[in-house]
């Protein structure tokens, strides 16, 4: 076992899958129904195929790049200034992601379970987990993902399996739902569910470069299966007219579980699942906020950044709640979110064209 900081492909894959799974726990199945109607389940199929294609292209381009992350590539392409611009752009993107998800998870938890607690109290609890994760570092959060994320996913699958008796095949009709055009438009908008590709390309130095292909495709495949299954379960349980209005879809599915007199209302298990998922999501994203910011500005110490950054994320989350705007469900914000896929692609294309791999290696030596 190597002692340098790093982790294996399983840890990286589970960490990334959780970033997609957080969407499922919050809004994804409902959004699919809103966009595609009864054919909403087709959108994740298309999204998965696009994501797989996207990754196939980027990984091909990565052959000329070596084990560098996006910041190293930016440094090689346009020097320190370009690296700082890209670094700050990614930092802002990740800070916004962390603050919006912090608010979303807190509000969800408040609605379904902690209705007597204030929103700020719930946010502070999430913030505590997020900050602790940052203190322990990327390696620790990836390692716990290796066993907590599978447990969380198994919990989710049990919920969906538990509602199989409630499945109504009629809900899938009409087969094309809102129409092919709507499905395609929806697929374009909600491709943002894979926006965390940016983290995959920041993670490359943490694992062997040879594992990039394995990690990336496993990430797309597992996430795709979860996205499709969650949407399908949701549509099969609720007719799409009803489903489109349902907030917190997994919780709503869980409410339909009924096994005899004893297991009547098991939906609180979804609280446990979504809390663990949220804490790992926020911990991972926040870890990369600190990592990217420190690396962008070549800071030797990153720990002193944790508390100030946490306060920024917390403040932004409070502000985003006051704006009363659905950041996760809105089409425009989802398109903006695609930056997480577009930015790495642009950098990697330029990097591959300039063959920065060899140059970069020289610089680092």
């Amino acid at each position, binding site marked *: 076992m190597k002692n340098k900081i790093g982790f294996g492909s399983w840890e990286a894959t589970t960490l990334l899958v959780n970033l997609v799974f957080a969407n499922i726990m919050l809004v994804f199945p409902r959004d699919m129904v809103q966009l595609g109607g009864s054919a909403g389940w087709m959108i994740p199929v298309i999204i998965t195929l696009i994501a797989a294609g996207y990754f196939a292209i980027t990984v091909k381009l990565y052959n000329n790049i070596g084990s560098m992350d996006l910041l190293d590539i930016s440094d090689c392409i346009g020097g320190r200034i370009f690296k700082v611009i890209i670094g700050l752009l990614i930092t802002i993107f990740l800070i916004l992601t962390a603050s919006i998800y912090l608010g979303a998870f807190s509000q969800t938890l408040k609605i379904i379970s902690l209705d007597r607690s204030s929103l700020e109290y719930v946010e502070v609890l999430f913030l505590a987990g997020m900050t602790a994760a940052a203190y322990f570092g990327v390696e620790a959060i990836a390692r716990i993902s290796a066993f907590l994320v599978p447990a969380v996913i198994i919990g989710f699958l049990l919920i969906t399996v538990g509602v199989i008796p409630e499945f109504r095949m009629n809900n899938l009709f009409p087969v094309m739902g809102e129409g092919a055009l709507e499905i395609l438009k929806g697929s374009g908008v909600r491709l943002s569910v894979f926006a965390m590709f940016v983290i995959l390309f920041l993670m490359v130095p943490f694992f062997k470069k040879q594992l990039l292909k394995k990690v990336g495709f496993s990430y797309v495949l597992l996430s795709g299966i979860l996205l499709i299954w969650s949407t399908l379960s949701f549509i099969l349980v609720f007719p799409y007219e009803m489903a489109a209005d349902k907030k917190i879809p997994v919780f709503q599915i869980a409410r339909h579980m009924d096994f005899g007199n004893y297991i009547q209302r098991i939906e609180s298990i979804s*609280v446990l699942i979504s809390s663990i998922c949220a804490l790992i999501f926020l911990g991972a994203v926040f870890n990369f906020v600190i990592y990217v910011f420190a690396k962008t500005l070549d800071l030797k110490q990153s720990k002193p950044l944790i508390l100030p950054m946490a306060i920024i994320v917390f403040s932004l989350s409070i502000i985003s709640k006051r704006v009363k705007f659905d950041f996760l469900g809105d089409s425009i914000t989802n398109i903006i979110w695609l930056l997480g896929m577009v930015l790495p692609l642009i950098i990697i294309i330029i990097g591959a064209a300039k063959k920065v791999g060899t140059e970069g290696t020289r610089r680092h030596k």
Partner: protein
Amino acid sequence: MGLLNSVGRYFIYKEKEKKNNFILKESKKISCEAVKNTASLDLFDKAEAEGALIGCTVGEDILKNKISKDMELNKKVIKTAYDIPKNSDLIFREFNITVKEKTLKAFIVFIDGMTNGVAICNFVLEPLMLLSNIEIKDNTKDVGQFVFERLIPYNQIKKIDNYSEIINNVNFGGCGIFVEGLEYAFAADTKTWEHRGIEAPKSETVIRGPQEAFNEQIRANTALIRKILKDKDLMIQSVSIGERSNTPCAVMYIRDIANDSLVHEVLKRVKSIKVDYIFDSGELEQFLEDSTFMAAPQIFATERPDKVAMMLSKGNVAVILDGSPQVLVMPATVTEFLHTTEDTNVRFPYVNFIRAIRITGVAIALLLPGIYIAITNFHQEMIPTNLLFAIEASRENVPFPSVIEMLIMEFSFELIREAGLRVPGAIGSTIGIVGGLILGQAAVTANVVSPIMIIIVAITALGSFTVPSFSMSFSIRIMRFLYIILGASAGFLGISLGLVINSLLFASSKSFGVPFLTPFAPVTKGKYSDKLTRKPMWKQEERPEYLNVKDVKSQPKVSRGWTVKDSDKEDDE
């Protein structure tokens, strides 16, 4: 008369006799500069300097000097070092020996009670005092060599040329032999003292497996392990710990299995400990472990020789400290704390069943009270309606919120456990009965706690008894209180927060370079099969890859030769 005196005491004042009240005075500062600042033996020769030695101990620098040919000087050094004759168990015996028709002065020094007096008489004093008078045909001219080869028929004897080492030997039950004219002394290993025999394990009992446990004797303990392993490559490196106590310590490993850097690190850590005295391996563990503040232990402590032997065979390193019946094994990962020795000895289906029970027990011990509090305070909808009514009815007259009720009960349980351990054996069982009565019937009748709470605490207690490791059980007990508070603060969100932070803490900690959560986080890909569950014995082909052992294979792919067809064997031949 007596009656008169007694009555008179009430009428006639009599001053009370003053008792001698002891006052603990501050220690007088004795100037030992003269002793401290010198490393020369001249100090003992100077008559005027002798006064300087009163009240001062002889420093290590002086004792590191070479032993002198001058018998008087040797006597002075030893007597001053041990403060003889004030020090009553030190035996200092002077006598004469005859070597080559020449009479030489000699003396022996040993500690009464730690040495075998008969052996000293029969194999040291008698040959030196009596046999030396017999003419022996030997051409050896060197006196020391003659004494060593001809006059001391003792099996374990060595020549030592400095005072420090001879004193260390005497302190550990040896007998120091000084002979006039020699620049060295002899140290005979005559140690013997009252000790406990090999008994059955007390805290790690098994039904199937050896019934031997370590005792306080380092040599007995090393022998127990060697007896099991019977491997010529088993190495036992001796180290002494304690500036004053020089407590013997043995570092054990199998040289062609254990990782060299691991062995080096263990030896480095053990040798680097600077402390006056060390009494137990528990103390040593705290000096060696990576993280002091982590709740979980990072070094495995066991009283079972078979467990140590098993771990050594996997590539771990063991440390045995004299005087301690617990042996430390490192590195230790989470799996070691959840396994017992019996797991290897019982059949494959049984072990996996028992491990499932044990892991459930651990989860219950850690989480059940917290989850109960979370459900009753935040997620009541999870409780089936009939049960909810029953809980509500039982809690109707209890004045405390459920979290306070739980904390009271858990605290009482910890109190009983601690009291049960501290009181003498005969009363121990009474404490259990009294505790059970107080916690059970009386507390419920008095409406201090609800019956359901008793059930929860009792199941939690049962769960905690399934934890095989004593240290791990402590860790779970501490963390349980945190989960109760978290469950009461934010329900399942609090429990999740606790689980994530706890996992982060474990994931980031290491035991001698091996992550604590290995082989689960990081996930290891080797064929080592004794993780959470265990594969059949014949499938356990490899040693744990996370120990980076020299020889990963522990058995061939086909370990059961009889499964191969005889015709195949013949073909191979």
